[in-house]
């Protein structure tokens, strides 16, 4: 397991950027480091991937295959996105042919706007970030490290990013990402650290959930197909982050999802042929009021 032990970093005789950091990043899990701007998150990630060396302390158990997506990818040159990725694939030891195939597959999946032959310097920030993400996935990483992936990538690519993260975690890899807004993390991380004042603290899962508004969505499948018990929502739900719980109540599927992911969940549900019965705000601080006579609750109690 990747482990940071008493890791500290400063440049020259400057101030400590991170100090005495202890953290564990287990395989098969999604770990997040949240904290304000300049809190040392990026430095921590650079130490994790091995680009930067800690001033003191030890990083142990770093896997060999690492995918790293920096926060600002400023591609230089007139190389096309596909050519760039092919070069990166070859550097990672792929054959030219394998690298090309993989590059095209990833760019298709991330739906790069402007085409695969678009020159790197003409790409918008969101599209450049897609290329940065693709290069990290050319070889399936054992450790995927993303610096502020949500802010760099356009909102339309958030769903696919969440999907990719859970894929890497499911196949046993570790996923680490940072976000400067502590409350808004679009995939539910298994482990969350808060970075601040140079130190890092592990947040308890309950604490993460606090103050995050939740939307309850009740869906029904028009074919009358009953959601099966083991996997009530079907695989498509896994791709969307922020899902708190999924319950099957008769023909209805009740999904509780973080407020900020509700839109994309609804969109995907409609695309998958589900029909929406009800959408309710579940306000935790005012439980009593929000549960008043809403359709969803009525529907549930009727069952």
């Amino acid at each position, binding site marked *: 397991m990747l482990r940071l032990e008493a890791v500290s970093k400063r440049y020259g005789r400057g101030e400590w950027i991170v100090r005495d950091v202890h953290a564990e990043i287990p395989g098969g899990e999604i770990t997040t480091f949240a904290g304000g701007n300049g809190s040392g998150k990026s430095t921590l990630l650079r130490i994790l991937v091995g680009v930067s060396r800690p001033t003191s302390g030890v990083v142990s158990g770093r896997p060999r295959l690492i*995918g790293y997506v*920096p926060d600002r990818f400023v591609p230089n040159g007139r190389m096309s996105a596909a050519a760039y990725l092919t070069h990166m694939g*070859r550097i990672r030891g792929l054959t030219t042919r394998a690298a090309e195939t993989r590059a095209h597959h990833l760019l298709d999946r991330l739906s790069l706007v402007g085409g695969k032959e678009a020159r790197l310097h003409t790409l918008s920030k969101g599209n450049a970030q897609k290329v940065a993400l693709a290069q*990290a996935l050319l070889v399936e990483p054992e450790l995927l490290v993303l610096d502020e992936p949500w802010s760099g990538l356009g909102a339309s690519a958030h769903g696919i990013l969440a999907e990719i993260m859970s894929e890497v975690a499911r196949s046993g890899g570790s996923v680490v990402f940072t976000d400067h807004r502590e409350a808004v993390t679009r995939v539910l991380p298994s482990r969350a650290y808060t970075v601040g004042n140079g130190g890092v603290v592990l947040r308890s899962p309950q604490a993460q959930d606090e103050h995050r508004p939740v939307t309850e969505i009740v869906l029904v499948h028009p074919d009358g197909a009953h959601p099966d018990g083991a996997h009530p929502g079907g695989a498509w739900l896994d791709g969307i982050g922020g899902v708190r719980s999924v319950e099957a109540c008769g023909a209805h599927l009740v999904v509780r999802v973080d407020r900020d992911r509700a839109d994309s969940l609804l969109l995907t549900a409609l695309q998958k042929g589900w029909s929406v019965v009800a959408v309710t705000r579940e306000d935790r601080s005012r439980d009593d009021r929000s549960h008043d006579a809403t359709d969803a609750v009525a529907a549930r109690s009727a069952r």
Partner: protein
Amino acid sequence: MIALIRYSFAVVLHTQRYLAPLLLFTGLMGVLTVNGNGPLPPAYASSAGALFVASTWLTVALISLDSPAQRAIVVVSTGRSAKVLAGSIGTVLISCLALLVFGLFFPLWMGSYQVGPTDLLLGTVAQLTCALTGIAIGLPCSRLVFRRRGHALVAALALVMAALFTQGAPPVNRLLRLMATSPDSADLLAPATGMLAAALVLLAASAWITQYLTTRRE
């Protein structure tokens, strides 16, 4: 390593950063060797001097090409930053070999010299010595070590001047002086080979220092 060198070449060719050092080299060659005659060593001293300045510039330009974020990606993809540095050195070295061939035959084509196999060998050894020394100067005078490009440029300029004009300083100044004053290539071959060895040591030391400073700075 081959993949790294291919990538470096692709970036350099796409950004056209090779143009300025290339123009400088061909310009110097033109000024210094066109219509020359007599023994070859002085002409090859000019080729070697031109290649020295060009290789320094090329090294600085090539190593400073990738933005820090892009370099981080390449380092993570490669696995070791030392290998990335070695890839950059390899790329400059191959470019310098191409220039070396030009520097070897351009004087023969443009002037009327008495040419023999030892002359060609001396020309190769002398240019290689200067190319290696140029790379050795260029490595630390790059974005890897200097945060500001202006400082790197001043440092490179100072080191190039010092190597060219410090009386009797090995390898560049001493080699060029010997070649400019002695017409016999056979006599020069032994000291030139010594200078080549010195340049190799210099390059190894420079690569080590650059790598050390880079990892400390990152």
